[in-house]
């Protein structure tokens, strides 16, 4: 197990370096003046330009630039946003909010997909299964932001069940509607996965052996079917974390939630390049960390990894 952990950690390092290098490369290794390019067609003040040039060490060779950038990440110094605030301060304010949104959405997604997925699998081919499939695919086909706008319009503005924007009311209670939107948009893939996983597991020989012991269905299903089916679900949620991050960005934009995603959104529509780079990097770091954690969790869940022969 220890070796597994070490090996995973070692694998993470090149991925981390590679990803950050790639982002950095895309922005700063292109021909032309990267700073001007980052600002698009806006005209920043010469003073700001000079500051940024110094911040990004543009007089140095590319590799040195990247080195400063990388160590900056580790030191926790990610520079400043366009408006002059330190990225760290912004993060401190916004990360908890996005965290709450993410946790709530994942909880909703898991509850829905585990229950509906299992029932669909057990009633395979029947009405419930077909119905759940259609509904799931429908939610998969609607872009998250459209879902956000539509629910905002119908549930908040027209029916008044929720407030249309979140703003300052971003504690656990205020995030219900956006969490619902995000959770529902994610649940389609995980529901299909759970369904497939349960169907496959039910056909496994050990399930028949369990029944032959005289166990009832109410024991076999959770202990021998679902327990095994959860493993692919959990690993999938890690690889799907990128979808969650993008979904969170969009949801925060629609509902005006002051989270990390919204900060990124503001930067993208205002074409504030440096901020975009910083925050995309943050998202990548988050993604890599979450995947590492889930991999370690997976090692705990599957004894074949925990105990090597």
């Amino acid at each position, binding site marked *: 197990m220890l070796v597994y952990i070490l090996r995973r950690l070692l694998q993470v390092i090149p*991925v981390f370096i590679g990803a950050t290098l790639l982002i950095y490369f895309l922005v700063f290794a292109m021909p032309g003046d990267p700073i001007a390019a*980052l600002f698009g067609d806006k005209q920043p003040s010469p003073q700001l330009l000079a500051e940024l040039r110094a911040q990004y060490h543009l007089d140095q060779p590319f590799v040195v630039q990247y080195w400063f950038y990388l160590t900056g990440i580790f030191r926790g110094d990610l520079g400043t946003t366009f408006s002059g605030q330190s990225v760290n301060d912004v993060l401190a304010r916004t990360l908890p909010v996005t965290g709450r949104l993410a946790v709530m959405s994942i909880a909703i997604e898991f509850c829905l997909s585990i229950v509906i997925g299992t029932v669909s699998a057990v009633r395979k081919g029947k009405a419930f299964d077909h119905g759940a499939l259609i509904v799931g695919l429908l939610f998969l*086909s609607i*872009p998250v932001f459209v879902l956000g706008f539509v629910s905002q319009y119908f549930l908040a503005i027209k029916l008044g069940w929720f407030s249309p924007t979140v703003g300052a009311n971003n504690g656990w209670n205020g995030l219900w509607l956006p969490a619902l939107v995000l959770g529902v948009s994610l649940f389609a893939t995980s529901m299909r996965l759970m369904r497939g996983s349960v169907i496959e597991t039910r056909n496994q020989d050990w399930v028949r052996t369990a029944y032959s012991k005289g166990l009832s269905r109410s024991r076999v299903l959770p202990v021998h079917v679902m327990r095994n089916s959860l493993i692919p679900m959990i690993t999938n949620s890690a690889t799907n974390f990128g979808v969650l*991050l*993008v979904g969170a960005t969009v949801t925060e934009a629609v509902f005006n939630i002051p989270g990390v995603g919204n900060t990124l959104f503001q930067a*993208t529509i*205002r074409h504030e390049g440096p901020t*975009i*780079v910083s925050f995309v990097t943050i998202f990548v770091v988050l993604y890599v960390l979450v995947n590492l954690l889930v991999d370690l969790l997976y090692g705990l869940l599957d004894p074949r990894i925990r105990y090597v022969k």
Partner: protein
Amino acid sequence: MSSDVNATHYVAPVHTTTITVDAVKVAAKPSSLWSDAWEDIRRRPTFWISVAIVVVVILMSFAPTLFTRTDPAQCSLDFSNGGPAPGHPFGYTFQGCDIYARIVWGTRISVAVGLLATLIGSVIGLVMGALAGYYGGWLDSVLSRVGDIFFSIPYILAAVVVMTVFAQFRNVLTLSIAIGGFAWASTARVVRAEVLRVRQSDFVTASRALGKSNFGTLISHVIPNAIAPLLVVSTLSLAAAIVAEATLAFLGVGLGDTISWGTEISNAQTSIRVAPMSLIYPSIFLTVTVLAFIMLGELIRDALDPRARAQR
């Protein structure tokens, strides 16, 4: 030595049909994997519905004038947020443009981005995945690491970065490369897994023992047998790419002034309280198209599933 079931030594009466061992059914029709899959899929009504939708969409892309006579660029503020009128079934946008016409004319851009991005992603994914899975060893390690790196950057966010940097090149090609150039990693993983599975089969070893080159075996035996999941993933990627175009437009890094579903939805945001339909109509077109492709993907997956095939 009697035919009584309860006797000590029971012998069943002899039937003539029990004699031949391992006879061949000469009369039946030949059935390969693809013909079996086709037989299965053509019976499903959802298949034909999806195909119909796809045909209509493609027709709209190539010949928008078949569907509308109105010029989408002809906008007049007199009609701002106007409701439906004869010849203008969906009404007008905030800027007084015909919603229906703009949706119809936007089809070709959205579909083009979808197709091109998927093509780029699938080709790169196929090559990387097949090489990594078949040759293994250090090549696999390197290619898988590269895949992991691309995988860890959500492709929408990567596209955001690219489109921001290349702001002066906002066109279909750039957008497609931005999407496909990062989305290939998940395709590569699927292809690699399937190639690994096929590679272990005896017919691959037999091919090498016959004298076929390593690379030749990859091309003529391994890849054709590994392509089924790629087909499924590609249809799903196509759907995802069309959605991506819309999302990127929403994020402000889409195609700008070019008419597409994404730009239409994005532009309608501001007037959602006053005229929600200007956002909902293009969304419906997008959703229905995406749904059609996703259904196709699911149907193809079911049709090619070897276990389901065994039961037919």
